[in-house]
């Protein structure tokens, strides 16, 4: 009897968690299809807010910025993070291996501290050299910087999970250094690379704080637009943007998971 009560209590925690996780999302998605200009009363199903969304040049711009930022930063972070991940793997037995931990700073540092320091840094550089004017360029640099540790970690753990003799087998079977990269390393960690790309992509799309501090006047991303629009109150239009973002991030996350699973099979 008591056992049952306990089991019910634990199940309750599970359902409660799901409730607070998904109901707000559901509400946002629901009201994005509301014909009335209200976030409290649902009248009729309507795509009106989506239509207005796509007529809004500011939103289209913000969407474009978000996409350009996410894709380009993810690609750059993938290349650099992959090299660092391999380097960490190769030198994991060195005495100075702890130095590698330095690149994990962005993971533990609060975004706001990271964002402010990046901003101050870019402003200084700009003042001295005229380079790095705040805009998409500085945002890409900032995003790449915080994406790299995630990519490096995923690549590193994939390499660590491999039998180290595989590297020797590739050498032994006549693969030159370049052929080892093309025919052994990249194909072997391919699922990890794809997974790391989608993770970087979602991190970038998601980010508001760091983007906010490093953006220029012309480079507002969707989260920045939402933040400025929300000052006038939450409109069904915002709900529509949020719904689209939920969809995009969910898809990236699902892809990332699928490829990671494929890699482990």
């Amino acid at each position, binding site marked *: 009897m008591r056992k049952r009560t306990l089991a019910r209590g634990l199940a309750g925690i599970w359902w409660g968690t799901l409730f607070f996780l998904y109901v707000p999302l559901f509400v946002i998605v629901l009201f994005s299809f509301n014909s009335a200009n209200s976030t409290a009363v649902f009248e009729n199903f309507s795509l009106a807010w989506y239509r207005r969304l796509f007529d809004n040049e500011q939103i289209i711009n913000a969407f474009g910025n978000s996409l350009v930022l996410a894709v380009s930063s993810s690609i750059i972070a993938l290349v650099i993070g992959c090299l660092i991940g391999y380097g960490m793997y190769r030198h994991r037995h060195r005495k100075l291996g702890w130095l590698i931990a330095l690149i994990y700073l962005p993971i533990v540092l609060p975004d706001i501290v990271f964002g402010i320091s990046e901003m101050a840094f870019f402003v200084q550089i700009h003042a001295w050299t005229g380079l790095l004017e705040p805009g998409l360029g500085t945002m890409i640099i900032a995003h790449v910087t915080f994406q790299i540790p995630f990519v490096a970690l995923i690549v590193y753990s994939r390499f660590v999970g491999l039998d180290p003799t595989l590297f020797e087998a590739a*050498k032994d079977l006549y693969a030159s250094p370049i052929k080892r990269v093309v025919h052994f390393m990249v194909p072997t960690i391919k699922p990890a690379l794809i997974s790391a790309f989608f993770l970087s992509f979602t991190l970038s799309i998601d980010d508001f704080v760091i983007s906010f501090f490093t953006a220029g006047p012309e480079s507002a991303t969707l989260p920045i637009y939402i933040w400025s629009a929300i000052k006038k109150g939450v409109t069904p239009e915002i709900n529509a943007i949020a719904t689209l973002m939920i969809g995009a991030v969910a898809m990236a996350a699902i892809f990332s998971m699928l490829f990671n699973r494929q890699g482990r099979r």
Partner: protein
Amino acid sequence: MSETMTAEIADHPDARPAANERDRANHKASSIEMQGLQKRFGRDTVALDGVDLNIQAGEFFTLLGPSGCGKTTLLRILAGLEEPDAGSLVVGGKDITETPPHQRSVNTVFQSYALFPHLSVRENLAFGLKMRGMPAAERHSKVDEIADFIKLGDLVDRHVDQLSGGQRQRIALARALICEPDVLLLDEPLSALDAGLRSQLQVELLRVQKRLGMTFVFVTHDQQEAMVMSDRIAVLNGGTIQQVGAPSEVYEHPINAFVAHFMGHDNLFAISAAEDDWVDTELGRLRLDPDEQRDSQDGWLLIRPETLELDGEIPEGYNRLEGTVAERLYRGSRIEYRLTVNGRSLMAVASNLGQRMHNIGDRVTISVCPEDLVRVAA
């Protein structure tokens, strides 16, 4: 000659006398010359301390020793996966000391098999050929050929993680053989397998080597395996070669106490004095073959358990000892006795021919031929 060949092949029901087999047997085999090879790890660990070794073309050669003796380091130097600090390595008349591994015509069967997880079995087999730039069609027929030769059957179309340990081992062997290297290196390839499969694959491996006539360098810590497989064995310890010889030579005439112990000998007794063909040991005074005379007064006397006869007729000139049976181990085909002689323990082995077994506590007369006693350096 051809008659004996036929007889040999007929012995193996699964052997197939195909035309391409004769071509394979003609494949060039290469000799290996190692001179003064040295290798240190860090400051204090000496892995190889000046190794000179010649391996003949077409030989099944085994590097035998305990872990840390340098056998694996030596194999890795042959593969090019480790660079020696000093010394030279010549394979097939070419100095390859400085040649990187991917440019050496040497292939390795790794202990962990090291099959690529991202490739199918077929792609694994073709990997070396592909890296050498062989066209796809030619690779395909080569894979079929080797699959036929090693009898892989439908394994070729499976995925690597669907294979058992024994199957992986054979794929790893095929993946190395398909490249037709000058030398094939095998790093304890059978150590992960259970006993039955292991002895089956020992025979298979040996058969493959004899048919190809390729030079095989085999690393193991198992002296039984080394004796079964090898044309010659090098016993290593502490980074130096202790003894090189045919299995019978190393087993029956170990050069020192280390080799004797490592080859599985228990019956070693300290020699306290030696004169002409007599030695004084812990067991008593024993007569040796005159050829066994050594200059030194000390060392060890080796008595192989299988040369001892219990309670038999004692021919003229044989050594005679008295002892009691302390332990009896029934092994089916043979019976092992631990005897106590002069307070010392002495092992004896008798083939199980249905004779009366000795019981624990029995007094027995032990006889041994002087020619079976071997003096071993300290």
